[in-house]
C-alpha cells in the first residue's frame, strides 16, 4: 500500500538517484550520443531499403528513429543495475537498511534515476530526429506518447538490470549482461519489418521476441499514426517485462536485505 510516508521515502531515494546520475556525465553522454550516431549512419546507409517493395516508411530515418529509444532503454538497464550493485558493494545499502526505509522504496527510487536519463535522452532523440527531417505521423500527441512509452521501456529494462545488480552485487556482472540484451535487440524487427525479413528462421525468432513488439509499437506512432494493435502489444509487453523485472529485483533484494 503506498501511503504518504512511502511516497516521501521513494522521493528521497529517487532524489538521490537522480542527483548522482546527473553528476556523472560519463553515464549520460554516451547514452545520448551513441544511439544518435548510429541513427545518422543507419538512416543514410540503409536509405536504399525504402526501395524494397512494401517498405512501410518514406525514409529509413522515420523507420529507424525509435531504435534510439530502445538503445536508451538498454542503457537504462545497465545504469539501474550498476547503481544498485554499487550500493551493495560499497555498503550503502546497509546504511539505508539501518533507517526506517521500506525495501520497495529502495528499488523504485533507484529505477527513478535510470528513468530520468531515459527521459532526457528521449527528448534529445526526438528533437534531433525532427530536426533531421523525421515526421511523426501520430502528431504531437503521438510524440508525447512516444516519450512516455520510451520511459516505460526504460523502466522495464531497468528492472531486468536491477535483478542482476541485486542478485550479484557486482557492477561487473551487470556490465556482462549487456551482450545478452544486445542479442535480444538484434534478433528482432529492429532493422526491417517482420514481413520483409526473408530468412524464415530469423522471422520466427523475431516474432517470438518481445523486443519486436516494443519496437513496432513505438515505431507505429512515427510511420503509421495511431495503430491500436501495435500500441496495445507494446504496452502489454512493456508492462509484463516491468512486472517480471520488479518482482525479480524485489525478491533478490529481499534475500540480500536480511534485516529483522
Amino acid at each position, binding site marked *: 500500500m503506498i501511503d504518504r510516508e512511502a511516497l*516521501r*521515502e521513494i522521493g*528521497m531515494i529517487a532524489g*538521490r538517484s537522480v*542527483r*548522482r546520475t546527473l*553528476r*556523472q556525465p560519463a553515464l549520460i553522454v554516451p547514452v545520448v550520443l551513441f544511439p544518435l550516431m548510429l541513427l545518422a549512419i543507419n538512416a543514410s546507409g540503409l536509405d536504399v531499403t525504402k526501395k524494397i517493395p512494401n517498405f512501410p516508411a518514406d525514409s529509413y530515418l522515420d523507420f529507424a528513429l525509435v531504435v534510439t529509444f530502445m538503445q536508451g532503454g538498454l542503457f537504462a538497464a545497465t545504469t539501474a543495475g550498476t547503481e544498485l550493485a554499487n550500493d551493495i558493494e*560499497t*555498503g*550503502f545499502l*546497509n*546504511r*539505508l*537498511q*539501518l*533507517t*526506517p*526505509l521500506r525495501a520497495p522504496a529502495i528499488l523504485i527510487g533507484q529505477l527513478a534515476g535510470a528513468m530520468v536519463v531515459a527521459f532526457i535522452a528521449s527528448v534529445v532523440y526526438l528533437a534531433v530526429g525532427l530536426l533531421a527531417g523525421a515526421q511523426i505521423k501520430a502528431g504531437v500527441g503521438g510524440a508525447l506518447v512516444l516519450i512516455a512509452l520510451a520511459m516505460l521501456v526504460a523502466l522495464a529494462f531497468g528492472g531486468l538490470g536491477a535483478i542482476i545488480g541485486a542478485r550479484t552485487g557486482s557492477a561487473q556482472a551487470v556490465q556482462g549482461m549487456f551482450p545478452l540484451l544486445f542479442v535480444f535487440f538484434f534478433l528482432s524487427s529492429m532493422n526491417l519489418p517482420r514481413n520483409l525479413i526473408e530468412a524464415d528462421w530469423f522471422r520466427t525468432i523475431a516474432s517470438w521476441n518481445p523486443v519486436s513488439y516494443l519496437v513496432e509499437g513505438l515505431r507505429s506512432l512515427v510511420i503509421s499514426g495511431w495503430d491500436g494493435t501495435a500500441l496495445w502489444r507494446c504496452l502489454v509487453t512493456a508492462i509484463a517485462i516491468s512486472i517480471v523485472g520488479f518482482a525479480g529485483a524485489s525478491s533478490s533484494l529481499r534475500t540480500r536485505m*536480511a*534485516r*529483522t
Partner: protein
Amino acid sequence: MLTYRAMSHDGITVSGLVREFKGGIRAVDGIALEVQPGEIYGFLGPNGAGKSTTVHMLTTLLPPTAGSATVAGFDVATRGPEVRRRIGAALQEAALDAFLTGREHFELQGGLHGLPKAERGARAVELLERVGLTEAADRKVGGYSGGMKRRLDLALALVHRPSILFLDEPTTGLDPQSRSALWGEVARLAKQDGVTVFLTTQYLEEADVLADRVGIIDQGRIVAEGTPQALKQEIGRSSVEAIPANPDAREAIESVLRRFGEPAAAGPKGVAVRLEGGSESLGDVVRALDAEGLEVAHLQLHAPSLDDVFLAKTGRSLEGAEEEERAEEAVPS
C-alpha cells in the same frame, strides 16, 4: 517520527548468540555479554574472530541463528524497527555516496529518519562542526580523504540522536592523527552525552585507551572480559628482558632470571621472564645479576598488555593470530 530520548535501558544484553553460515561455519559461537548504559565496550579480536558478524546481528542487519540479544530493551530478532530507531552505526565500510556532498548525506539520512527539514539543516551544521567538516560540507564525498570519510560516517550515525552507537573498526586504515581525533570524539560522546558505545577493534591500544570494559573474542567465542586493567592484572605480572653485554653470558643470565619467574617472549638478543613477584622484584633481579658478576647491556621492564591477555587465553599473540588468518585466507580450499 519521534526523536528518541535517553532512557535507563539504553544497554545491550546478549545471551548464547550464535550465527551460522552455509557449510556449518559458526562465525559467532554462543557469546554472552552485557553493556551498561553510557559505557564504552571494546570488542577486541583478530580478523575473522566474529566481531563484525556480532555487530551485524546487534544492529539487526543479520538475524541470529540461535540465542538472543536485546538492544535498548528490544529484541533484535523480533523488534528490528524499534531497535533501529534507537541505534546509530558506523560499519566497517564508510558506505558513502561519492557523488553526494557531506551536507546532502545529512539531508538524506535525516530525512529517512523522519527529521523535519529545518531540524535536518540545523543538525547537519552542528554535527559537521563537531567532526571538523564544515568547510568540506559542500564538496562531493568522492574527494574526501579516508579520515574525513570516517568522520562523516560517525557524524551521520548520530544524526537522529541515538542512545546506542555501534562502531565497527572505526579507525582501521587511518593515520595516527585522525585516529586520535576520532578517539576524542567517541570518548566525548560517551562521557558527556551519555551514549552507550559498542566498539569493535583489532587495535590493542584502541581498546586499552577507549574502552571501559573489553571483551576479547576469538574464533566466535569470548575468551576474556573485564576492564583493561583487571584483565592485565589477571594475567599479571610484568616481565623483564635482559640483553647481555657479552653474548657468551646469555645462558648464565637466563639461569639467574629463571629464579624469578617463567620464561617469556623476548627479542632475538635478549632473554626474558615473567616476574612472579611483579615489578617490585626488579631490584632483586638486578642484585642477583650483580652478585654473579654478570653484565647487562640493557634491562627492560614490560607491563602486561592486552596482547599478553590474548596470548594467555588462546596460546597465540593477537598479531600472530592475524597472520594466521591471512595465511589461511591465502591458501585455496
